[in-house]
């Protein structure tokens, strides 16, 4: 069902976001602990990276139907 597709996308998106943020956070934490003396920078950075990646992924996923593919341009 096409109307369910969006919901599925959102689900994926959220899942992905959670994973990414979590992974980022984790990595941030790790990095901050290991390399950056417990500063909050890497955590924030990691979280941000994770969020950003998630955002980007989500956006890409949502806008994937509108992307023109190289084969279509070739056909055109």
């Amino acid at each position: 069902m096409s109307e369910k597709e969006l919901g599925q996308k959102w689900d994926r998106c959220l899942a992905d976001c959670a994973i990414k943020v979590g992974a980022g956070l984790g990595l941030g934490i790790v990095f901050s602990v290991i390399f950056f003396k417990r500063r909050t920078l890497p955590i924030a950075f990691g979280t941000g990276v994770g969020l950003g990646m998630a955002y980007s992924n989500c956006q890409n996923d949502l806008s994937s139907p509108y992307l023109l593919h190289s084969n279509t341009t070739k056909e055109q």
Partner: protein
Amino acid sequence: VSKCVCGKVAVHPLQHCRRYASAGNSGSAAGKIVAASLLTVGGGLGGTILYAKWDPKFRANIEKSVPYSDQLFEMTLGPPPPQFVPLQKKPVKVEPLQISSVSEASKDSKQPKAKGKAKDKQPEAAPVEPKPAIDETPAQSPQTIEEASAEAAHIISAMSEVPSVPAPVTSYEPATAEPEAQTLSPGQPAAECCSECAPDEHALKERPVEEVSARLAQQDQAEQDALAALSADLEDALGVSAKLTLQAIGAQEVALSAIGKHTHKLREAMDSEDPPDKKSAQWRELEDALSDRTRTVDQAGQALLQAKEQLEKLRVVIDSAKGSKIESARPQILAAEENLHSMIVDLDKVVTKVQAAQSEAKIVSQYSELVNEAKVQFQRELSSITPEVQANWKGLTGKLSADDLNSLIAHAHRRIDQLNRELAEQRVREQIRIEAALEQQKQEHQRAVDQAVSTALQHNREELRLDQEKKVHEVREVMEAEMRTQLRRQAAAHTDHLRDVLKVQEHELREEAQENMNSKLMEQETNYRRLAQEQLDAFTLDMNSAYARLKGIEEAIDSHVIAEEEARQAHQLWLSVEALNYTLKTAAADSPTEPLEDAVRAIKESCAENEFAQALATALPEESLSRGVYSEASLRARFYGVRRMARRVALIDETRNSLYQYFLSYLQSVLLFEKEQEAPPVKLAPQDLDTFKLLAYATYSIERGDLELAAKFINQLRGESRRVAQDWLKEARLTLETKQVISLLSAYANAVGLGTTQAP
């Protein structure tokens, strides 16, 4: 701004002044220009008008090219001059005809005059073309040659009458009668043929051929009769004359012989000194001979007379025969004439002979008379001397005495002397007498010669005449033969011409008859054909009508069968469609119907030969067959979810599809309040293509049960909303399609069923 206004106001009167100031100069220049232009125009117009007056063609050209110029021209010059149409088509042919006729008439009038001079037939008797040519030459001859050619002219004219009869020459007969009468009259001895023709001349009409031939036969017969009569006469006369002439000649010859005999006898008697008995016998013989001679001479004379009479008669007959002018008697006449001539000649010869004999006899008789006289004198003297001695003194030789003897001797001596003296005298006179006699003889000889000459001349003339006549006869015969050949030729030409004409006529008549027959035949044939065709047509018509009726009956039966078959099939179709319809109803709330495949197969089987139904059955979408379709209610329920989603992503499309836009779109959907259902307008305007509006229309439609319209509206969505509604749209389409096909099928089945049901 006020400056400008003032400036403007200030400028105007200057301009005006400037205009007024320059008006004077420009006025004169303008006036000059106007005057010059007026002059030019006027000059051109005047020149045109003058030239048009002079040359009408130019006027016509101008009138054609420039409108209203004809009115101008009419005003100034008057109406255009009339056109010259050539009217020289006078028929001049009448005159030559007249002239020719006049010339003909003059020619004709001249010809009769010229011909009238020659006293010939007028040339208007032209139908008998060869005749005038022939007529001319013989017509001219009668004037120059005498009776014989007059006969020819008569015969020719008689014959020319005959051939001219078949051609109608009635109007010219009086004219022809005159010249003919004229030609006939100059050379016409009265003869039967001419007398026959003469009454005919005045009663000339077109005689029929039989009359002509009868007349010809009559003429021939008359000729023949006359000829026969003539020849009979001639022969009779000839015979008689010949007989008589022969008789005369015989008699003359007999006379001649008698005379000769007598003369001989006389001479004998004179010369011989026979004894008296012999002498007496001699004298008796002599007397016999004399009597014989006289008798024969008389007879001869009579015979001669008779012969001469007969010859005269013969001559008369010959003349009359000649006068009768019958050609064929000519040779007979000639022969008769020759005979006559020969007879005359013979007679004359014989007569001359007789005359010669007679003259000789006369001489001899004279001599004998003289001798007799001398003897008688001597006798007398002797008797005077010796009276006793009588008659036959010759027998008295013994009786005579010496005296007698002496006296006798003396007498004899005296006689001798006398005779000597006479002899001398005679000798003297002899010369004179001889001369006289010679003269006489000469004269007589001359006379005889003259007579002989005249008779010879006469005979010669006769002979010449006879020769001439013979020649004439021969020439005539030759001419006759030639004429006959010419006439024969003409007759042959005539027959040829007749034959040709007859042939042509025959040909024409035959063709006519053939044509007639052909046309009649064609008529009959066409009639027959027409009748046959009519019959055939009628029969065909009947047959056709019967056949048509049979066909109609058959068709009716077939159609009945067909109709029943169709009815059955329609019933079947309807049943199957009903089954299909029923399957549609098996749709549950959220699951589709059963696959329609079976029902469709059933339909396809039931209407195997119905193309429409087949087409419709195949038009069902594949999905519906395999998977089935959703019901309307389920679709309707599903719609609301779709609607919600579509509202949420109303702002997302190709250009706007970031997350932020998603957020905005969601915000919009939350904040936008509108009617859930809105009645769609009849016509969609572009501003109605807004997502929310469309969704409102679709909701309205779907609430009213119009899935189709809702689907249409949903189809107008763009962007993400469209993507979201895609599946629903597809399902809706399937359902709609299926429903449409099924409704068509059921309608068709109903229609067919209606159609096949027969009204009671």
